């Protein structure tokens, strides 16, 4: 079951002008390939600003409403999760000749996109484990998922607006 729509968050370094639309990632290591990245949890957006968006000494957190109806939701939807695992593993087996050290998940996803496999979907929701120690119950036990959405179709993003800015630690 997909929750649609969702309020989600994008972190940017603070610039002279407030953004009126989201920025697509230029990070060559972005897991889900090229796209507009949003955090599910505002606290992860803040953590990202404090630790990774430090170029200007300040960061901004933007909020947007995102229609997730046509998103591949590998976090909350079990069917989508199994579908994702199956096809990623087929791709690794088919394309990499067991050499998994020289490729990132970003390129697998970019390949899917550029070969039009993702034409029918608006984005992929994915999770990892945050290194934010505030999320430890006991040391190195993370009780919270860190969830991100990579949006490939920008038309599902509405109400994009600055929520707040803050100084990096």
């Amino acid at each position: 079951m997909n929750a649609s729509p969702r309020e989600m968050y994008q972190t940017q370094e603070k610039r002279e002008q407030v953004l009126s639309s989201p920025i697509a990632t230029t990070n060559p290591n972005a897991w889900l390939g090229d796209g507009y990245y949003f955090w599910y949890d505002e606290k992860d957006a803040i953590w990202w600003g404090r630790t990774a968006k430090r170029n200007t000494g300040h960061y901004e957190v933007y909020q947007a409403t995102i229609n997730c109806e046509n998103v591949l939701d590998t976090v909350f939807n079990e069917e989508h999760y199994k579908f994702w695992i199956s096809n990623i593993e087929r791709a690794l087996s088919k394309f990499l000749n067991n050499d998994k050290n020289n490729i990132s998940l970003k390129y697998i996803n970019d390949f899917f996109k550029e070969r039009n496999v993702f034409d029918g979907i608006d984005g992929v929701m994915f999770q990892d484990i945050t290194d934010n120690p505030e999320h430890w119950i006991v040391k190195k036990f993370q009780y919270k998922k860190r969830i991100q959405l990579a949006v490939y179709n920008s038309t599902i993003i509405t109400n994009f607006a600055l929520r707040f800015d803050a100084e990096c630690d």
Partner: protein
Amino acid sequence: MLDLNKLQQKFNALFEQENAESFGHWLAQKQNSELENRLGRGTVEEISTQNANIYFSSASTPISHSNIKAFTGNTQYAMAA
């Protein structure tokens, strides 16, 4: 609502059409393209050498072409962004 059957058909078609070789070819082009986007597309400046062997007048010791490359360093591949 996302149609997984339709999406699976697209994955199946991809896995039938592509292989490790075609993926490797695409990956090399993709990474080159990303590098050019970051650095700009440059031109290679060819430094011509009339004679690969240059002799010191005093010792008449030949210097190989590989040594000339070492002398010119990165300027041999000057990047014009």
